[in-house]
C-alpha cells in the first residue's frame, strides 16, 4: 500500500469516520449558502449557521452523552423523551404558578424540582434493569409510555407558556456572545469526560458492559454502576428538557422531546459506540449528535423539502449500521480487501462491535474531539 503510516493512523482513529461525515456534510452546504461558515456579530451576539447548529443541537448532545454511558453498559434508555417532557412540564408549571416569574430563587427551585423528577425516573429505570433484571428496552418502555401521560397530567393537557427572564437564559439566552446552552453542554461533556476518563469510572462502565457477571465476580458493584448510568442519563435528559422548554418558553407534554431518544441512539451509533456495550466514546457521540443536527440544517438550507428529513435519517441509520456489521463488511469489502492488506480492510475503525478486548484498545486513545 502506498499510504503513509501517518495517514493510516489517521483513518484508523475511532473518530475519523464520524468527523469525515460531519465535514462532508458541512462542505455540502457551501455551494448552496456561500456564507455558511461566516459568523457575524450582531447586538453583541454571534450569529451564523455554525452557532445555530450547536445551539439547536445542544439538547440532543446532552441526551446522547447520557445515552452513551447507558449503551456502554449494554443497556438502552427509551424513556429520555418522556423525561424531557416531564422535566419541562414540572419546571414550567411551577414557574407559572409564581407571582413573580422572574424571581431567581423560584426559577432555581423549579429547575431543582424538574431535575429531581428526572433523577427519580432514572432511579426507577435503574432499579428495574439492575435489581429486577428486566431487559433495558422493556424496562424503559414503561416510562416511555406512561411518562408522556404524566407530563400531560402535570400540564393538564395544555401548553403552559411562561415569561421568565432567568429561565430563558438556559435555553435561549446569550453569555459572552455565545448561546448559554453551549456552555451548559460544554460543562456537562467536560465533567463526563473527566469522570469517565480521569477516574476508573469509565473503565468500570465498560467492564460492566462487556460482561456484567464477570465484573461482579472481580468485585465491581455492577448493579450500582448500572443504576448510576441510568440516573445520569435521566439527569442529562432532564437538563435537555429544561433547555427545550426554556428555548420555547413553554412546556408541551405531548411534543417536547418527541423522538429524541431515537435521535440520541442514532447519534451514539454514528459516534462509533457499539450497541452491544463494552466500549464508548463521548467525543464520538458529540460528533454524532452534531452530524444529525447538521443533516437537519442542511436539509433546510439546500431546499430539499423538509419532510424528507426522516427518509434521510433512515438512510443514514441503515448505512451506518451496515458499515458496523462485521458480516456486511466481510461480504462487501471482504472480496476486495479481505485477507491481504488490513490497512483498508478495517475501513471503519469507528465501528467494530465484535471487538472483544474493548477496554484496552479504547481507553488510552480516548480524547474529546
Amino acid at each position, binding site marked *: 500500500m502506498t499510504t503513509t503510516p501517518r495517514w493510516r493512523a489517521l483513518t484508523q482513529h475511532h473518530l475519523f469516520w464520524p468527523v469525515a461525515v460531519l465535514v462532508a456534510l458541512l462542505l455540502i452546504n457551501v455551494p448552496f449558502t456561500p456564507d455558511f461558515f461566516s459568523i457575524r456579530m450582531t447586538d453583541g451576539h454571534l450569529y451564523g449557521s455554525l452557532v445555530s447548529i450547536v445551539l439547536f443541537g445542544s439538547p440532543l448532545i446532552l441526551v446522547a452523552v447520557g445515552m452513551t454511558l447507558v449503551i456502554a453498559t449494554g443497556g438502552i434508555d427509551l424513556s429520555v423523551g418522556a423525561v424531557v417532557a416531564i422535566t419541562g412540564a414540572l419546571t414550567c408549571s411551577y414557574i407559572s404558578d409564581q407571582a413573580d416569574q422572574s424571581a431567581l430563587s423560584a426559577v432555581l427551585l423549579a429547575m431543582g424540582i424538574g431535575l429531581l423528577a428526572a433523577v427519580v425516573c432514572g432511579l426507577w429505570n435503574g432499579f428495574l434493569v439492575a435489581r429486577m433484571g428486566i431487559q433495558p428496552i422493556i424496562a424503559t418502555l*414503561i416510562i416511555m*409510555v406512561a411518562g408522556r401521560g404524566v407530563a400531560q397530567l402535570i400540564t393538564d*393537557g395544555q401548553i403552559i407558556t411562561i415569561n421568565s427572564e432567568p429561565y430563558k437564559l438556559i435555553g435561549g439566552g446569550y453569555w459572552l456572545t455565545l448561546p448559554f446552552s453551549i456552555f451548559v453542554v460544554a460543562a456537562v461533556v467536560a465533567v463526563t469526560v473527566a469522570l469517565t476518563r480521569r477516574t476508573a469510572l469509565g473503565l468500570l462502565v465498560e467492564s460492566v458492559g462487556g460482561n456484567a457477571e464477570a465484573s461482579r465476580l472481580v468485585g465491581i458493584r455492577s448493579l450500582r454502576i448500572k443504576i448510576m448510568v441510568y440516573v445520569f442519563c435521566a439527569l442529562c435528559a432532564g437538563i435537555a428538557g429544561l433547555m427545550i422548554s426554556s428555548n420555547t418558553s413553554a412546556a408541551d407534554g405531548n411534543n417536547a422531546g418527541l423522538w429524541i431518544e431515537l435521535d440520541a441512539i442514532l447519534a451514539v451509533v454514528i459516534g462509533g459506540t457499539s450497541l452491544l456495550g463494552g466500549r464508548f466514546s463521548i467525543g464520538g457521540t458529540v460528533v454524532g449528535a452534531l452530524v444529525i443536527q447538521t443533516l437537519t440544517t442542511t436539509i433546510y438550507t439546500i431546499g430539499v423539502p423538509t419532510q424528507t428529513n426522516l*427518509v434521510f*435519517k433512515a438512510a443514514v441509520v441503515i448505512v451506518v*449500521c451496515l458499515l458496523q456489521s462485521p458480516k*456486511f463488511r466481510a461480504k462487501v469489502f471482504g472480496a476486495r480487501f479481505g485477507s491481504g492488506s488490513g490497512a483498508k480492510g478495517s475501513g471503519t475503525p469507528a465501528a467494530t462491535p465484535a471487538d472483544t478486548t474493548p477496554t484496552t484498545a479504547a481507553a488510552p486513545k480516548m480524547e474529546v474531539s
Partner: protein
Amino acid sequence: MSATTQTPKTQGSRTPSTTTSKAARLLGDRRLPVLVTASLFLVMYIAGLSRYQNYGFGEPQVFLNLFIDNGYLLVAAVGATFVILSGGIDLSVGSVIGFTTMLTAWLVEEQGLPILVVIPIALGVGAFGGFLMGYVIHNFEIQPFIVTLAGLFLFRGLCLVISKESIAIDDSTVSSMAQAQASLGMGFLSVGAIVALVVLAVAFYVLHYTRFGRRVYAIGGNEQSAMLMGLPQGGTKIAVYTVSGFCSALAGLLFTLYIQSGDPLHATGMELDAIAAVVIGGTLLTGGSGYVLGTLFGVLVLGLIKSIIQFEGTLSSWWTKIATGVLLCAFILIQRAMTARKKT
C-alpha cells in the same frame, strides 16, 4: 384489578422450601399470564358494569365496540406477537400503519384507483418492507431494534413525502365498506372487526398447528439450539418480519376504513400500544413463550381502559397512557417472577 395482579406475586414470594409445589407448578404454567389477563379483563368489565350500569355499559354493543374500535390494534398486535415470540422486536408498526393510510388515501383520491386494486398494493408494500427489514436483520446480523428503528424513520418519512396534509377519502366504495355492518342479533360488528377476528384465528392456527409456528417458538426459545436442530432459522426470521409488515399494512387498511382519511401523523406510537398489548397478553419479551389469544385479551384490556375512561367522563385521555404504563409494569414484573422461578 389489584387483586388479580397480586395473586401470583404473593405466591412467587413464598419460600420454596415450605411450599407448595402447587404454587410452583402454577407459576411455571405458561398459560398463567393469559389467565391473569383474561380475569383482569373480566374484573374490569364487571367493575365497569356495576359502576356505569345506568349509562348503558351493559349493552352488548359496548362489548362489540371493543372489537370495532380496536380491530386495527388487534391486527397490529398479532403481527407484533409473531416478532416477539421469535425473540425480536418491531418498532416500525406505527409508521407502517400511518404510511398505509397515506398510501391508500393518495392512491384512491389523487390517482383514482379503485380500492380493490389499492388493497393488494398496500398489503404488498407493507409485506415487502417487513421482508427487507427481516433480510437485513438476518443477513447482516444487526439488532432488530435498530433496523426496525430505521424502518420507523423511513416509513414515517415516506408518509410525509406523499403529502404533508391529511387526505380525506370520499370514495363511495370505501365509505360503504366502512359502514357495512354484520348483525349478530344483539349487536353488530364492522368489517374491520371481522377481519381482525379472522386474522386472529389464522394466526392461532399458524402458530399452534403449523411447522412455521413451531419454528417461531423454537427460534424465540433458543436460537442456537434451533439452529443446531437444523431448523431453517434465517427463512423463519425473515418470514416473521414479513408477517409483521403484512399485519401492519392490514392494520393500516383497517385504520383507514375506521377513520376514512390518510394523515402523515396517524398512528404515531402505535408500536408501543401493540407491544404493550402483547406483553399484557402474557407473551415473554425474551421470546419463545406466549399465546396469540393472550394478545387478544391484551388488546381488549387496553380497549376497555379507553371505554371506561370515556364512560367516566371526567378523566382525560392521558390517563390511558398512564394506565397502560402501570399495567405494562405490573405484567413485566409478573413475567420476571415467572422466569426467575423457572431458572432456579
